[in-house]
């Protein structure tokens, strides 16, 4: 387990909610921000704010250095070959939409296949639904195993020579399943398809190596990994990005503008139309520095341990169902569950009254909820600042929810 002092880096955690010290267990929705990131944003706006890539003046250079410096930090963070492959965007949703809109429309036609899975987040379903509808392509789903994992046999059965795009989440935001992206990428490539990875729940918690995965695109958001909202990353292989058209046109992304024709800047800027997300990128850079200093391996270990501890403790509660793989080594640091006869909203309200923040609902994964045969679930998700005491408070809260509703049934 990580040192409990880490909690002190997050000023928001030091407060009472409904008369109890806050226990924040909703990091899979968005993480809290360490003082290092808050100060980086403050410092940027206080001392270095300026537009990038255009000024001759000193502040402009400072802002440009901060922005492009953050790009290099991201490159190193996911081990991309070049900063040309790192595009700053609003978040995972925008990044996945960009791949569907730009790469998809140029490369997918009627009768081709797009392959996703039953566990995807809406952001990795709907862009492909739309692409399939607009092009006449077929959207196929890889079925899940009983325990909410993917079997490579089913992956092999689903991907065919007609498959053009395979897009799969690295880590499930509901089941916690960690998918074998490297192996699936190899299967996709054998059939001439490209592999796109939704890494929104992976980037905050584990070491990502895009060269080892050999995936073609990978998307993640800053706000789930201690960074600010409104900044995310699309990684793409240079040879693919070079051949893709931008989907936003305007300032920043142009090379030469004529009355009737224009040309684009080189990578990565041709995909960054308009004044970029300068403060967001700088904040993300600070978040990466922060996570690297603690160590992604140590963070991942900490979360596995916490999830294991939570599953053990929660399993002792009668009538509590946990979804997803049971082996804590095979899942990320979150536990999705239901308490018999108490609706997850009611569970979440009782927990909230105890100062404990969890998510309740469909977690932006309605097809997965259907697969699980429930309309909603509750989810506790952990991050580097959570402790076993937080889990104990959760378990105590769950027991009081059960007690409170016991007369109902």
């Amino acid at each position: 387990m990580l040192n409990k002092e880490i909690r002190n880096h997050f000023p928001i955690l030091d407060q009472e909610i409904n008369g109890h010290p806050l226990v924040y267990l909703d990091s899979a929705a968005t993480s809290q921000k360490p003082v290092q990131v808050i100060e980086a944003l403050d410092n940027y706006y206080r001392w270095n704010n300026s537009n990038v890539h255009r000024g001759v003046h000193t502040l402009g250079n400072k802002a440009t250095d901060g922005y492009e410096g953050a790009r290099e930090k991201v490159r190193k963070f996911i081990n991309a070959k070049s900063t040309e492959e790192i595009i700053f965007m609003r978040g995972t949703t925008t990044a996945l939409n960009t791949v569907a809109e730009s790469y998809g429309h140029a490369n997918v036609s009627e009768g081709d296949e797009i392959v996703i899975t039953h566990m995807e987040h809406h952001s990795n379903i709907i862009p492909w639904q739309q692409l399939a509808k607009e092009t006449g392509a077929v959207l196929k789903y890889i079925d899940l195993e009983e325990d909410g994992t993917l079997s490579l046999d089913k992956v092999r059965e689903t991907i065919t020579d007609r498959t053009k795009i395979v897009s799969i989440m690295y880590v499930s935001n509901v089941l916690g399943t960690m998918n074998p992206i490297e192996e699936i990428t190899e299967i996709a490539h054998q059939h001439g398809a490209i592999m796109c990875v939704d890494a929104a729940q992976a980037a905050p918690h584990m070491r990502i190596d895009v060269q080892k995965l050999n995936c073609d695109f990978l998307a993640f958001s800053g706000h789930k990994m201690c960074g600010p909202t409104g900044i995310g990353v699309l990684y793409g292989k240079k040879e693919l990005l070079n051949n893709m058209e931008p989907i936003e046109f305007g300032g920043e992304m142009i090379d030469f503008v004529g009355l009737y024709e224009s040309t684009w800047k080189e990578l990565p800027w041709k995909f960054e139309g308009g004044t970029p997300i300068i403060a967001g990128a700088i904040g993300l850079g600070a978040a990466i520095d922060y996570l690297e200093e603690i160590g992604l391996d140590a963070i991942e270990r900490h979360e596995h341990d916490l999830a294991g501890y939570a599953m053990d403790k929660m399993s002792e509660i009668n009538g509590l169902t946990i979804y997803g793989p049971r082996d804590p080594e095979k899942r990320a640091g979150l536990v999705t569950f239901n308490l018999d006869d108490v609706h997850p909203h009611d569970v979440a309200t009782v927990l909230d009254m105890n100062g404990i923040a969890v998510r309740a609902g469909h977690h932006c994964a309605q097809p997965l909820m259907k697969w699980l045969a429930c309309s909603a679930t509750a989810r506790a998700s952990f991050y580097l600042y959570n402790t076993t005491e937080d889990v104990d408070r959760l378990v105590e809260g769950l027991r009081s929810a059960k007690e409170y509703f016991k007369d109902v049934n």
Partner: protein
Amino acid sequence: MSTNKLDQLYRSVIMDHYKNPKNKGVLEGGNVTIDMNNPTCGDVIHLTMNVEDDIVKEAKFEGEGCSISMASASMMTQMIKGKTTEQATKLAHAFSDMMLGKDLDDSIELDDLEALSGVAQFPARIKCATLSWKAMEKGVSGEPQ
């Protein structure tokens, strides 16, 4: 824990309606059917009514959701039976006002519904309480689904 505040939300009347919902089921031969869901949380309601001569003769609901949404649907179906569509719409507006914490017109009899007034203090749960009322309002307005 803050049991008092929780009790405000889950008054015994609500729990009674949750435990023993009134008018649960599908109305055979109803002439109005409304399906509505709350996309942010997954609650769903299937409301069937029989509206004749601008009077709600019968109403039944089926659905999935938390105690607040199901209890609210139970109370709603109970209250609107026998009301004119105009009265039912007025009640829906009064209910919505109550959820927003607004003062209500004294002429409106809210009966059991007042048990739900505590929901106004839980902003995240207001949508749970209003789902069935929105479905009903749509149903009596004669708008096509």
